[in-house]
C-alpha cells in the first residue's frame, strides 16, 4: 500500500504530496505525521501540495486536522505551493484553513517556520539547557 514519505530536516518534517490524495492515503498521512511529530519532537511541519490539482472538502479537513493536532503537539504547520485553482476551490467550499500557515514555495515555507518557531526556541532552550 502506498504511503507518503515523511522526511526529517533538522527540527522540521517535510511532506511532499506528489499524487492525488485519496481518502485512505490522507488518513494514513495524518496518523503517520502525528506519530512522527511525537517521535522526532519536530517543531514544524511543512506540507508541499504544489503537485496537487484536485481537492475536496475531506482533503481540506485533513489539512486543518493535521494543523490542529500539530499545534497541540507544539509544532507549526505550513502548507506551501497551493495552486490557484485549489485555493479557489477551498474558498468556495468555505474552508479557509484557519490555523494553517501558508507560503508560496518550500523555501519561503522553511523561512516562515524559522520565524514562527525561532521566537520560541530560545526561551525554551534557556529554560531547559540540558535538553538537546
Amino acid at each position: 500500500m502506498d504511503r507518503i514519505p515523511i522526511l526529517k530536516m533538522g527540527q522540521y518534517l517535510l511532506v511532499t504530496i506528489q499524487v492525488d490524495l485519496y481518502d485512505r492515503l490522507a488518513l494514513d498521512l495524518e496518523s503517520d505525521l502525528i506519530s512522527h511529530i511525537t517521535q522526532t519532537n519536530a517543531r514544524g511541519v511543512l506540507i508541499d501540495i504544489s503537485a496537487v490539482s484536485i481537492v475536496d472538502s475531506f482533503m481540506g479537513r485533513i489539512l486543518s486536522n493535521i494543523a490542529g493536532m500539530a499545534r497541540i503537539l507544539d509544532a507549526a504547520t505550513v502548507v506551501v505551493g497551493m495552486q490557484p485553482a485549489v485555493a479557489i476551490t477551498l474558498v468556495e467550499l468555505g474552508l479557509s484553513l484557519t490555523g494553517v500557515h501558508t507560503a508560496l514555495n518550500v523555501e519561503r515555507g522553511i523561512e516562515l517556520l524559522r520565524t514562527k518557531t525561532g521566537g520560541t526556541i530560545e526561551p525554551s532552550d534557556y529554560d531547559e539547557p540540558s535538553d538537546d
Partner: protein
Amino acid sequence: MSKSIIGTLSQKKNQILTLWMRNQLSDGGLRDDLMNNEDLRQQSAELLDCLFDTVTDDTLTAPDAPSLAPLIDQLTHVSMSRARQGFTPRETGTYIFSLKDALLEIFRHERKEDSEQLLGEILLISKFIDSLGIVTFETFIQGREEVIMRQTDEMTEISTPVVQIWDGILAMPLIGTLDSSRALVVMENLLQEIVRTGSGIAILDISGVPTVDSMVAQHLIKTVNATRLMGAECIISGIRPEIAQTIVHLGIDLSQVVTKSTLASALKHAFASMRIEVSKANSRSF
C-alpha cells in the same frame, strides 16, 4: 397610361425634400442637439437622390432587388451612424416614415382625378417605404449591438489589470461594480499573477468600486482567503468613508482582513512587513 410613379416623383424632388424636411422639423422629437438642420437636410437630400437614382417602378414591388443595393447601403449608413450618435429607435423610424407622408402628399395632388389609381400607387409606395423602414430598424439594432459589444470588450479589457508595483508586491486596482463572474476573473488573475511573480503581498484597491454590499464584500473576503491559502498576504485598500460606513452598517466582518484607506498606506504596510525601508536619496549620491 399616365406617367410612371417614380417619373412623377423625381420631377418633384425639391418639393418632396421641402415637405420631408417640414415634416421632420415639425416633429416634436427632433433632436437638433445631435444633428443640426443643415446636416439633416443634406442627409435627407442624399438619401432622396439615391432613392431616385436606383428605384424604378419595377423595383418598387421588389425591395430586395440587387439594383437597390446602393439605396440599402445608404440607408444602412444613415441608420448605423444614427445608432452611434445616440438617436432613439423612434426618432430613426420617424425619419424614414416622415418621407412617406411627403411622398403621399405629392401623390394626392398629382392623381386628383383618378382615385382608383391613387389608391393602388399609395399602397405600393407605402409598402416600399415600410420595407425601407424595416431595413432601417434592422441596421439600427445592429449598430446598437456593435456599440454594446465594443463597450463590453473594452470593459473586460480594462477591468482586471494586475500591476507589479514593487519586487514582491502586486497591486490590483478594481474599477466598476463587482459581480460574481467578474469577481472570479479578478481572483483567478490575481492568484495566477502571484504564482507567476512569486509575490508575497497583493494589494486590492477598491477605490474605483462604486458600492460595496454584502455580496461584493463576500467576494473580497474570498479573494483574501484564497490569497492567504496560496501563501501570500492580501491587503484591501482604497476604502472610502462611505464604504466603511456601509460595511459596518451591513454588519460585515472584515476583522480578518488587513484594510487601509489608501493605496499609499497599504504600500507602507507592505514595506513594513517585508522589512523594506524607503527613504529619500542623499543628494550627494547623484
